[in-house]
C-alpha cells in the first residue's frame, strides 16, 4: 500500500438551492464513507479557509490571500491509501467535486523514505 494526497479545488462557490446543497453534502458523505469502509482513508483531512496570508522571499514579506484565481485555490485535502497511483486515480474519480464546474482533484503520491 502506498499513500496519496488528494487536493480538492472546487472553483468559485456555486449557487445552490438548500435541497441541492443538502444532496451535494450527502454525495460527499457517501463517497468518503465508501472509501473509509474499504480501508482507503488514512486521514479524512480538513477543509481550508479560502483566504489567508502569503509569506514570501528573504524579507518574509506578508501579503493577503487569495493567492490565485478562485479555481486554483486548494479547498481541502485527504490522505488516502491505495495499491498504486492508478488505483488512487480511479478512487478519486468517484468524488462529487466533478459535478460542479471547475472542480478538480489533484492526486499526489506521498514520497517514500529510503
Amino acid at each position: 500500500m502506498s499513500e496519496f494526497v488528494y487536493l480538492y479545488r472546487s472553483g468559485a462557490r456555486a449557487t445552490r438551492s438548500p435541497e441541492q446543497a443538502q444532496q451535494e453534502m450527502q454525495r460527499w458523505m457517501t463517497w468518503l464513507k465508501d472509501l473509509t469502509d474499504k480501508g482507503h482513508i488514512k486521514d479524512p483531512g480538513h477543509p481550508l479557509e479560502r483566504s489567508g496570508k502569503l509569506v514570501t522571499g528573504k524579507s518574509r514579506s506578508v501579503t493577503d490571500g487569495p493567492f490565485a484565481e478562485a479555481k486554483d485555490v486548494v479547498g481541502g485535502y485527504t490522505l488516502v491509501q491505495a495499491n498504486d497511483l492508478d488505483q488512487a486515480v480511479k478512487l478519486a474519480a468517484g468524488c462529487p467535486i466533478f459535478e460542479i464546474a471547475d472542480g478538480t482533484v489533484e492526486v499526489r503520491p506521498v514520497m517514500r523514505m529510503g
Partner: protein
Amino acid sequence: MDLGDHLFRRESGRLIAALTRVFGIHNLALAEDVVQDAFCRAIEVWPFRGIPDNPSAWLMATARHRAIDVLRRERTARTFAPEVGRLLESEWTLVPMVDEALAASAIKDDVLRMMFSCCHPRLSEDAQIALILHILCGFGIDETAAAFLSSEAAMYKRLSRGKKQLASSNHLFDLTDADFTARLSAVQRALYLLFNEGYHGASAESAVRAELCREAMRLTMLLIDHPLTATPSSRALAALMHLHAARVPGRLDAEGNLSPLFEQDRSRWDSTLIEQGLALLNKSATGPEATEYHVEAAIAAVHARAVCTEDTEWNQIVALYDMLMTIRPSPVVALNRAIAVAQSEGAERGLEEIRAIADADRIAEYPFYYAALGELEHRCHRDEIARGHFHAALARARNPMEQRYLQQRLDSCR
C-alpha cells in the same frame, strides 16, 4: 449518519427570516447570501469532520458569525433594519442584538412576520404563494417553478418582482398592525392554496405534492402556536388540512393509480391525522364566525367519519356545500355539491345540478368537470354520451396519472 429529510430547506426559511429582522427586509438578498454561505461551509466541513451533533445549531452559529462579520464591515456603507439600527452601531449592542434575533423563540415570530410580509396586498395570490415557498420553505427558483408547473424564467420574474415589493416595505410586517386581520386572511388563503396545489395540483410527482402539503401544514401550525394568529379560522384551516392529508395514503391504489373517493380503501386513511383534524375542528368551533375553512373541514370530517361511501351522510354534505356556496361561491364548489346531490338523490338529479352551474365556462378546462358528467351519464346507462364526456376529460388531463385514471373510466363505458 443521515441528515433529516429537507433539513436545509427548513433551516433556510428560519435563518432568512431571523437575519432579515437584523438586516432589514430591504437587505433580503444579503440575508440569502449569508444563509447560502452557511450551507457552503457545511458542505465543506461536515463530510470531513463529521456531521455535528446538532446540525441546526451549527448552521445557526455559522450564520451568526457571518452576520456579525457583515454588520461590522458594512456598518457605515449600508443601512440595516430601522428598528434595530441604533443597536447595530455600537460594538456593545451589536452582538447581543444578533443573538436576540437568532434565539429560538424570536425565530418563530420572525417566520410569522415574514409570512405576513410575503402576503402583501399589492402582490397577486400566485406571487404570495411563490414567495412563501421560495423564502420560507427554501425551494430554489427551479424547484418553485416545478411545483407550479411554470417555466423557470416566468418564476424568476415573479419572484424578483415579489422580492422588490418586499424590499420596498420598510420593515417586516408588524403582527400588531392595524391591517393585521386583513393580512391574516390573506396568509390563510395563501397557505390554503399551497396545500391545494399539493393535494389537487397538476404536478404528477407525488413526492413534490406531498411536500407542498407538509409545508403548508407546518406553516399553518405556526399560526396556531402564536396567540395573535391562533384564531378559530386558523384552527379550522389546520383541521381541513389534517383531514385531507389523512386521505392521501388511500388516493393511490397498489399500482400507483388514482383512486376516487368512492372506491378508496378507507382502512388506509391515516387515523392519527383524522383524530388530530377532528380535535382541531372541535377547537375551531368558537366565536361567531363560520368561515369557508370551517365548512370545508366539516365536509372532510363527514367523509372521515364514514366507514364507506354508502355510509356517508350525503344530505349533510349537500347542506354544507349549500353553506359554502353562500360564503365562497365558485363553479368548483357547485360541481362538488352536484356530485353530493347525485349521491343522495340519484344521478339524474346530479346531472340537473351540474347543468345548472353558473359560470360553468370557468371550469371548462377542468378535466373532472367532464369526468363527473361522464360518471353520472354512465350511471344512467347512457354510455355513448358518457364516453363523449370522458373523451373531453382525457383531452384536458394534466398529467399521466389523471390520463390513466380517465382512460380507465372511459374503458368502463361499453
